[in-house]
């Protein structure tokens, strides 16, 4: 069953179009990996899907309250402990316990550590654990595996697979291969926005210049 449908979407960054004519659908139990060189617009696209910025054109249809977004930065509070950080998000999303998350991301023995005292990879793992406590079916992830070691990447792959099996879906931008066979890959290069002269979509101000 369909979780997210995007129709001929155009996204802007800093006032001018970055990607255009983008259409895809994401079904339950499936994962879609966004590929593309640095600066093509992955983050921008994901932020738009997350509703953080308005789309320039096209439609995004997704049932309300289904999406959990994880950005480049994990939104951890340095002075709170790992457990406290997770508890906070758990109660924001109104889901109960954090034990499952702690175990899946193997953060048990770090649970009482202040987030500030975690290493880069440990932080990242905590950031991913956050996803698990949201209990949302659609995951939108921006480079989730940054600075994870091989073991942790595998761990993450497991988590995603489990999520998909339980009827969830995932949309993620990465540069590395996660070894997810359920995942289909979408290369963004072809959707790079063209200049208006070559029939590309026009950004806010060009429009005004009509």
């Amino acid at each position: 069953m369909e979780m997210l449908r995007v129709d001929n979407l155009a996204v802007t960054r800093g006032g001018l179009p970055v990607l255009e004519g983008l259409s895809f659908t994401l079904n339950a139990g499936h994962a879609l990996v966004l590929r593309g060189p640095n600066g093509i617009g992955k983050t921008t696209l994901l932020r738009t899907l997350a509703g953080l910025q308005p789309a320039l054109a096209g439609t995004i249809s997704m049932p309300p309250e289904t999406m959990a977004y994880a950005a480049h930065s994990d939104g951890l509070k340095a002075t709170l402990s790992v457990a406290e950080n997770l508890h906070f998000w758990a109660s924001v999303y109104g889901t109960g316990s954090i034990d499952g998350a702690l175990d899946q991301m193997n953060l048990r023995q770090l649970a009482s550590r202040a987030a500030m005292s975690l290493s880069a990879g440990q932080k990242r793992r905590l950031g991913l654990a956050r996803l698990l406590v949201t209990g949302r079916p659609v995951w939108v992830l921006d480079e989730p595996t940054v600075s994870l070691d091989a073991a942790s990447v595998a761990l993450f792959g497991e988590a995603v697979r489990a999520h998909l099996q339980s009827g969830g879906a995932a949309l993620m931008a990465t540069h590395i291969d996660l070894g997810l066979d359920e995942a289909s890959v979408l290369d963004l290069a072809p959707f790079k926005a063209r200049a208006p002269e070559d029939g590309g979509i026009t950004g806010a101000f060009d429009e005004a210049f009509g």
Partner: protein
Amino acid sequence: MSIWEYANPVKFMKTSSMVLPWVSILSALCIVTGLVWGFFFTPEAANFGSTVKVLFVHVPSATMAINIWVMMLVTSLIWLIRRHHVSALAAKAAAPIGAVMTIIALVTGAVWGQPMWGTWWEWDPRLTSFLILFLFYLGYMALWGAIDNPDTAADLTGVLCLVGSVFALLSRYAVKFWNQGLHQDSTIMKVGQDDPLDPSYYVPLVISIVGFVLFFVTLLLLRTRTEIRARRLKALEQRERMA
């Protein structure tokens, strides 16, 4: 055709370029007439002596300072509601003019106050609330300067202008209350209002007020055109970089 067509930059550029020369000439005429008349050909007033001549620069500037903020409020609203870029840019263009008008009113007022009240500055309600208006101008311009994404800046300054206007009004009443509360002897500024000015002052005053208004319009058109171009330039540069 609806008035909103002028909100299209191209249309605006066309129209403004046609209007601009005439407005500028007119404003120059009015200001010169008004001020020359006021400066050279007005009699001394009983209670003001020759300082009455300050009236012709002080009142217009003060009036403009207040009304320019009102105009900014309107244009900001138009931007926030109808998202016409020109409107936002007009507000941006107007702010410095308003600030300068405020400074002029402050300076002329202070200079005038020296002989009249024996002090450069008095914490009189009107003066004080005027000073506060100046603060709002400063904040507004500072905010425009601090944000580099134009649309973000337009939105935020717009919101600031809204909230600011409300509090500017509030402050005006607060200040009145505050200073009556300290029964401080009322200033001579009442003169202006209660007894209608003698025509020999009235006519040149009106002329120079009109002059100031036109001067504002001239600058506004000029600066808005600049802002539009700057915005266009920014967009082009960005696209070039992207390509």
